């Protein structure tokens, strides 16, 4: 009887430990680390490769992953990005991190340019793709400037990552951009303009 009680207590302790150690990749410190890795990966990846990945992600979003359900679309893009990185001729450890930002940016497009604004641009410009790209860069640049004004002087990549995390969580109401949209736009724009 005593043995059984001891065994039960040990099992419940293990179970409790297991529950408390459930993966929480979105804790504050983990989020900052993710952003820091993304900043580094984007900075270290050559521009032509980044451009190739952007085109790949856009093609997937418009083609194979153009589902009506947002969840299906996101899941499809994640699986396709993982597959793309797995099938690279030369292994690239930064591939998944850069693809994360690139795919997030593709999904962010329609959040950064609202539908009514998108229609207005398409109707007003014969070469609407270029106009949409210009508008996207304008909104992203505006977000980056606002971030710089809010965050002040940040020393080093880890400070910058912490600043981006803080800013994107705090200003979602004003900018109306979800956290991932804000993070990927800032990581992309700030690194690009260095």
């Amino acid at each position, binding site marked *: 009887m005593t043995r059984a009680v001891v065994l039960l207590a040990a099992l419940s302790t293990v179970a409790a430990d297991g529950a408390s150690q459930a993966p*929480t*990749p*979105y804790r504050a410190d983990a989020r900052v680390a993710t952003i820091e890795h993304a900043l580094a990966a984007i900075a270290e990846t050559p521009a032509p490769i980044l451009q190739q990945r952007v085109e790949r992600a856009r093609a997937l979003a418009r083609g194979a992953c153009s589902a009506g359900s947002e969840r299906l679309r996101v899941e499809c893009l994640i699986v396709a990005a993982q597959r793309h990185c797995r099938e690279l001729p030369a292994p690239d450890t930064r591939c998944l991190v850069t693809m*994360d*930002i690139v795919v*997030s940016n593709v999904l962010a497009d329609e959040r950064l340019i609202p539908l009514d604004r998108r229609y207005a641009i398409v109707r007003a410009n014969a070469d609407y793709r270029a106009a949409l790209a210009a508008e996207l860069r304008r909104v992203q640049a505006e977000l980056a400037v606002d971030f710089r004004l809010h965050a002040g002087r940040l020393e080093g990549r880890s400070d910058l990552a912490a600043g981006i995390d803080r800013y994107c969580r705090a200003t979602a109401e004003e900018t109306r951009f979800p956290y991932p949209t804000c993070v990927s736009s800032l990581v992309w724009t700030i690194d690009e303009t260095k």
Partner: protein
Amino acid sequence: MIGTKTLALLLLLVAVVAAVIALGSFAPDRLAVRGPATLLVVGGFGLVTGTVVFRFLHLGEQSRHYFRWTTESFTWDVSEAHFVGGRRRRVVIGENRDGEAFDLARSTRLALSIAIASVVALAAIGSRALEQMQGAYQGIATSTSSLTCPEEEAPKPVARDPNEPGCELIRRAYALGYIKSLGECAPRQEQQTAAARPVCTRRQRDEPLLHYSWRRLVDFWGGRRGATGLSYVKQSSADFERRWAHLEPLVRSEQQMLASAPHASHHVWTNLPDPGDGAFRPAECAVHFARLPHRPTPPPGPTQASQVFEHVLGQLVFEGTYDAPAGNCREYHVHWGAPADACQRLAASPEGFLAAEGALDDVRQTLTRYRVAGDLASLGSARPPQDPSPFVTFHCYVEGQGAGRASVPLSLDGVRLAADELRVAPSAPGTVLYVDRYDAVGRLLANGFHYGHLLSEAGLDEGSAAGLEASFAGPDMLVTRLYELEGIDIYLDPGWLLHRPDLLEVYPYERHLRNYVQVFRRQYRRQAGRL
């Protein structure tokens, strides 16, 4: 013995210089920003104005009177009179018949007069004033200014883009007979009907300045005559009589405005203890509720439930982040620590209960404002609704035994009102989201409030959210995965997200909480408001 004109000039100069120094007009930085043009205008103004004043006030002539300081004893002298001072030391004023009083030389007095006018001009005219004067003159004098009538432009031909996006298919469908109209892709009319343009009363491009000035003067005089004619007097008289007949409500309305009387009176009784933060103090509540965290995170303790209730009430009604506030927090009164049967007591004896709670005056002021607004409706003011109950509401929020909503009718000063009570079970220990409190407060304030799948931003994706938990355990693509949270509305069912505090930190509240608050306020505004 000094002449009055000399004394007046000297005193005026001293006063003007002292005032200008006190106002900082002689400060080096302010003098530096005045350009040479300003100084030229100042000099010109001083010269002209000083000379005019010197000439028309006869400052060049000898003073008729003089002032004299004396300590002599009083004597009977018809040419002198006591001006100021006591019996022994005084100033006397006398007639300067023989010109024996001291007066500055004529040229010196002229110089003083010009100097005073220049100093006043220097204090009053800055570079900006000069620019505005120049701008005003140029605006009137030049033919291309905004004060002149615009030239009529010939209508431009409408450019048509044969490759307008989306139109090719529509044109094809129209040609094949699948649709009956081209809609926005139809060829645009070259000649659009010119809208009737109003008569331009500004200066015509070829109109001489003098003619324009005369026209403006005639217009002004015509306007004055219109405001002094018989019909205007009759109308004014009728208006006065009408307002005179409503003098009492008008006076009351003014009094209410001056006293900042409440436009509404909303009272909530709750058995929860006072959180002690004074959030509903009239002077501070607007600041307190201007911006709240996404979700209440009160520390455990005896006032935890009160803080949650206060947060939820503030977020649903007052916070301006998501939508225009649905009420003014100064007109909401939360009565903490009320008995659980507060609404029954209120319904049983409205006047006594409200007086005991210190709410009677507030409620009566609102009802008086309602009546005054009704009286003034015949004078052109907005007529209030038939029923005053949206402006005076009574709610009871009880956490404890039992559950459900009940409404008890009551009557106060002949006005039929109601006291609505909602009973809910206390939150379970360790709760992190308090979604059920949002629902409870929403149902308490807005009778019939409901938030369902059809109102949610998550739409039909919500149904498949249950399987998402596994997706958020993945080690990669962490940013992209967060888009999937947009399909989970925690205000419908938080589900497994309750156990993921890390995800709650990056949850898209700006999407779902905003929607929840907007849906609530749409329903709440139909039932409560302010005069």
